[in-house]
C-alpha cells in the first residue's frame, strides 16, 4: 500500500497517526508547499507576541517523520490529481503514484478586491509562518497597523503585535467583533477588554479605497497607516479535487469516513466541508481539532480500518490579553444568560438538547457542555438546573456517572 498526503498541517499529522495505528510499514509520502517541519498554524500570533518560539511551535517532535517512517517532500506543490491513473503531478513535472490519497490542502486567505489595494506599500495576510516572519520584519515601534477583519485571525494578529507597534486599528463591516462566534453582549465585553489594551475598532465600516498608505472608509474617515494586514476570511483550497472531477461546495465534500466522491481519495481539514451536528448543515469547520480528527479518521480508513467522524461541531477556544472565550454549537432556541463582573455565559437549548454556548471569563469544565452537544444528550435525562448553574457531572444520573468515573457500563 502506498499513501500520499498533500499537506503538512494538523490534518496530515492526524492522517499519519491514523495510518500508523493500522499499518506500521507501508510507505507514506507527505508533500508540503511550505518548507517547514509540521508546525501549529494558530501559534503564529503567539510567535509574534514572544510567547512561543519557532522550535516550540513545532506541532510534533523533530523525529516525527522518521518515527512514523514518512518521506517529507517539502517546498513542492501538487498541481493535479489523476484519479483514474492514481497519480499526482508535482510542480516540478514529476508524477507519483498512490493507492490511497489524502488531500489536506487547507485554505488560502481571501483578499477582497478593494480599489487601490495595489498602491499599498506594505501589506500581508496572516495564516502562515512565512506571513508571521514577514510581519516580524515589517513591524517597528513607530508602525501604525491597520487590520481588515475583526474575526479570529485578525484579532489574534492584533493581540500578537500590539506591544510591538505604535497603534493597531481593526476595521470590520460587521457591527461587532468576532461576529461568527459571539453575540452582541459577548462581543461588547471582549471589545471593551481589548480597547483597554489599546486596540482601536472601527465597526460597521469598511475600506472603500486605498490611496497608497491611506485608507478611505465608507463612512468618510481617512486612516493613515504603515502596514496593512488582510484578515477578512479564508477560502478552502478545493481546486485539486474539483479539477479532478470530485464534488466540491465551499469545501471539498466528504462523508463521515472522510472520503471524497473520487475513489481512494480522502480529504480532511480546512479544505473540506462536512456535516455539522447541531445545524445539520454542511459547513467548512476551519478548526485545528476538526482537522486533526478528520485526518485521523481518514488515515484509519485509508489503511483498511473503519472509522467514522460524525460528531463535528463548530467550536472555538480563543483568548485575548488573558480573557478566555469558549464557544460551541449553534445559537438558536431558548437561551439562558448569566452575567457578572468579567463573566458572561449564554446557553442555547432546542428540542430537549443543549445546542450551543458562549462562555467568557469563567470557562471551567466547558468540555462537559461540549460533549452534551456532540452526544445530543436529552436534557430530560440530566438535572437541568445543575447544568444551567455550571458544567458538572453531578447533573448526570448515578448510572451514567458509574460509566464515566467507574469504568463500568450501565
Amino acid at each position, binding site marked *: 500500500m502506498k499513501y500520499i498526503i498533500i499537506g503538512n498541517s494538523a490534518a496530515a499529522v492526524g492522517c499519519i497517526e491514523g495510518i500508523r495505528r493500522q499499518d506500521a510499514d507501508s510507505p507514506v509520502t507527505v508533500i508540503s508547499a511550505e518548507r517547514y517541519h509540521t508546525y501549529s498554524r494558530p501559534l503564529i500570533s503567539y510567535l509574534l507576541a514572544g510567547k512561543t518560539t519557532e522550535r516550540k511551535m513545532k506541532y510534533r517532535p523533530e523525529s516525527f517523520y522518521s518515527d512514523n517512517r514518512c518521506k517529507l517532500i517539502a517546498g513542492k506543490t501538487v498541481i493535479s490529481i489523476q484519479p483514474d491513473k492514481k497519480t499526482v503531478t508535482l510542480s516540478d513535472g514529476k508524477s507519483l503514484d498512490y493507492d490511497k490519497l489524502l488531500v489536506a490542502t487547507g485554505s488560502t486567505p481571501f483578499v477582497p478586491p478593494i480599489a487601490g489595494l495595489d498602491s499599498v506599500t506594505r501589506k500581508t495576510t496572516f495564516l502562515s509562518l512565512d506571513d508571521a516572519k514577514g510581519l516580524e520584519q515589517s513591524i517597528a515601534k513607530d508602525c501604525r497597523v491597520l487590520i481588515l477583519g475583526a474575526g479570529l485571525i485578525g484579532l489574534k494578529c492584533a493581540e500578537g503585535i500590539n506591544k510591538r507597534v505604535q497603534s493597531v486599528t481593526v476595521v470590520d463591516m460587521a457591527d461587532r467583533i468576532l461576529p461568527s462566534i459571539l453575540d452582541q453582549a459577548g462581543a461588547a465585553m471582549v471589545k471593551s477588554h481589548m480597547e483597554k489594551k489599546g486596540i482601536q475598532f472601527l465597526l460597521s465600516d469598511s475600506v472603500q479605497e486605498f490611496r497608497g498608505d491611506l485608507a478611505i472608509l465608507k463612512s468618510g474617515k481617512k486612516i493613515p497607516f504603515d502596514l496593512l494586514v488582510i484578515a477578512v476570511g479564508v477560502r478552502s483550497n478545493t481546486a485539486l479535487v474539483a479539477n479532478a472531477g470530485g464534488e466540491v461546495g465551499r469545501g471539498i465534500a466528504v462523508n463521515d469516513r472522510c472520503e471524497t466522491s473520487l475513489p481512494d481519495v480522502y480529504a480532511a481539514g480546512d479544505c473540506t466541508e462536512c456535516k455539522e451536528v447541531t445545524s445539520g448543515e454542511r459547513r467548512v469547520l476551519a478548526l485545528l*481539532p476538526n482537522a486533526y480528527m478528520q485526518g485521523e479518521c481518514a488515515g484509519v480508513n485509508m489503511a483498511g480500518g473503519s472509522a467514522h467522524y460524525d460528531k463535528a461541531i463548530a467550536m*472555538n477556544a480563543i483568548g485575548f490579553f*488573558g480573557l478566555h472565550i469558549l464557544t460551541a454549537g449553534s445559537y438558536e432556541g431558548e437561551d439562558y444568560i448569566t452575567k457578572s463582573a468579567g463573566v458572561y455565559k449564554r446557553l442555547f437549548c432546542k428540542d430537549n438538547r443543549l445546542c450551543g454556548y458562549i462562555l467568557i471569563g469563567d470557562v*471551567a469544565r466547558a468540555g462537559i457542555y461540549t460533549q452534551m452537544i456532540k452526544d445530543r444528550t436529552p436534557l430530560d435525562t440530566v438535572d437541568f438546573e445543575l447544568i444551567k448553574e455550571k*458544567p458538572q457531572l453531578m447533573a448526570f444520573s448515578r448510572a451514567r456517572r458509574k460509566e464515566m468515573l467507574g469504568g463500568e457500563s450501565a
Partner: protein
Amino acid sequence: MKRIYVNEKWCLGCHLCEYYCAFANSGAKNMAKALRDITIHPRIRIEEGRDVSFAVSCRHCKEPLCVKSCITGSLKIEDGVITFDRERCVGCYTCILSCPYGAIMPAEGGVIQKCELCVQNAGGSPACVAGCPNKAIVFEERGEL
C-alpha cells in the same frame, strides 16, 4: 492499563485527595509546610451535592479528545498516560473546551494542569489513591473507556 476509578458510594467528601494531589505535585518534602496558608490547585476535584460526593480527575481516555484537539502538541499519550508539556502550552484552553469530564483545568501561569497519575512527580503512583481514607478512589485495571 491501570486507571483511577471512583466509587461515589464510598466517598466521604473529605477532600483529602485534593490535598494529597496538591502536595504530590508541589515537589515539597513536608506536607504541612507545602500546603500551609495557601490556596491549593489540585488536579483532582471533589464534586459535592446534597447526598453524594465524588472525585473527578483525568480518565486517561483511550481516545483522548484533549490530545487530538491540542493545538500545540503539549498533550500526548505515553504508555497510556496522558501527559502534559508545560513548556509548549500557550494556554489556549482547547483541551478545556474538549474534555468531556471537565478534568483539565486552568493552572497558575496561564497554562493548564491535569492528572498525570503521579508519573512525573516523586510519588510514582497516584497520591490521591494512597491518601483516600475510605478507598473511594482506586487505581486498578478494568474495562477500557
